[in-house]
């Protein structure tokens, strides 16, 4: 009888011990806070990239009046030396800078005649600020920083949102004939380079009457 009681007590103790260690309680707001901390914040990443990498590095952009002749004579070298992309494929991005004169303005873009290259026009986008050009053109973002595709898609969207709010308002004051200097990101297909329709997503502009 005595042995049975001891047995039951031991079993009950073990069950209680296992049960106690199997169940634990946490505050709901603590759990939610942990989940939020783990969620990738694309807006914060984009702002940090804009402030600490993209805008401080604008002087490294290749001058368009140097890039265009190189793309004409030795495109492979131009792509190897100055283009970047986060993924693989033919679409590559360049960070360019240039000076020129505003030649035309329409609802979607501002056309610039490039100084020193009278035949060359670059359209600075004012309506279609989409895609990965501004994110990828510097080559300063590492794909291994991201665990899933939607995170780096969202980074592009957030960088484009910064451009809409910070850069586009300056382009609204542009008039035909103004002098303009700009830095922007362009996309080119390395298999089929089309220099007649270069469209830059602006990162910085300076317009002089």
């Amino acid at each position, binding site marked *: 009888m005595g042995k049975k009681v001891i047995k039951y007590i031991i079993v009950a103790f073990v069950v209680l011990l296992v049960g106690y260690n199997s169940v634990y309680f946490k505050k709901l707001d603590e759990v939610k806070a942990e989940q939020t901390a783990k969620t990738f914040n694309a807006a914060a990443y984009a702002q940090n990239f804009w402030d600490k990498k993209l805008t401080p590095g604008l002087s490294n952009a290749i001058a368009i009046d140097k890039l265009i002749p190189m793309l004409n004579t030795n495109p492979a070298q131009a792509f190897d030396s100055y283009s970047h992309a*986060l*993924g693989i*494929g033919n*679409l590559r991005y360049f960070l360019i800078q240039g000076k020129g004169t505003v030649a035309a303005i329409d609802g979607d873009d501002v056309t610039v005649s490039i100084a020193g290259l009278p035949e060359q026009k670059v359209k600075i986008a004012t309506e279609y600020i989409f895609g*990965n050009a501004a994110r990828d053109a510097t080559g300063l973002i590492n794909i291994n920083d991201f665990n*899933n*595709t939607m995170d780096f898609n969202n980074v592009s969207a957030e960088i484009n949102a910064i451009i809409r709010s910070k850069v586009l308002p300056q382009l609204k004051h542009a008039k035909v004939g103004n002098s303009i200097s700009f830095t922007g990101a362009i996309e080119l297909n390395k298999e*089929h380079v089309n220099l007649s329709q270069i469209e830059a997503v602006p990162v910085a502009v300076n317009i002089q009457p």
Partner: protein
Amino acid sequence: MRYLTVIKQCSLYFLVVVVVLCGCRSGSDQGRHKKVAVIVSTLNNPWFVVLAQTAAEQAKSLGYETKIFDSQNNTAIEADNFENAISAGYNAILFNPTDADGSVSNVLEAKSAGIPVFCMDREVNSVDAATSQILSDNYSGCVAIGKYFVEKLNKQGKYVEILGLVGDNNTWNRSKGFHSVVDFFPGLTMVAQQSADFDRNKAMEVMESILQAHPDINAVFCGNDAMASGAYQALVASGKANDIKVFGFDGAQDVIESIQNKKIMATGMQFPKVMAKTAAIYADEYFKGKRDFPKKMPVAVELVTQENVNDYTGYGKKE
């Protein structure tokens, strides 16, 4: 005595040569003895045949024994394929999953057996299971389609979206990319959004029923080219093919021809051969010691339009 010495010396040289040759042979055979399995969702669709065959050919050209396993769009068969590949001693798996969630356990099984898995085209919903996932950049490709769509519709009109399989990640990445552009333009109104499971016939039926409710639409965006062809067929039958613009995604041969004939406006060109070759090259690099692979590697999708269609052929660029 002298002869004996010479014989001894010759024997010694012979032994050294044999040992050296054996050493060299075993070294060169190291790569050749490794085996790479290609497990593909289905071989009943030419797109996936191209993917699987290219992966196998690339792995073979790198010196590995290869075999293609067909999962017949069935996760149970896929699980058997993984078990067979693991028990047969394959050293890497180039994998096109049948199901983003259902395939995770198979990848984890291979991982626990020490076999790296490289996903091609379709992803599994796990960050840590596969060694690397090489995927079409569906979102960015549809950003480009969205921009062209807005331009061709002059920023206004009514449109329909026909989605692929609602449980497939590619369906939503494409839809999100498209809407990330189109939703910026208030003049464009989506009057219907329906799934047709990536199927041409279903898309035709869906389009027919949508046209009855919304005969005044200006455009239709489809999540793949098979559905774009089905939608176009419905438009031809209703006599509206010249009034409603159709946009697809994939880069299928028949749609490239339809773009050339101005029946379909545009598509997003995927590159199955690039994805397959990259997966095989990653496996080769893994065998040589590399470990820091990107968890997900996007492969650029190119916009094929009325203006540049002559640069392209089905599933790729003209050579």
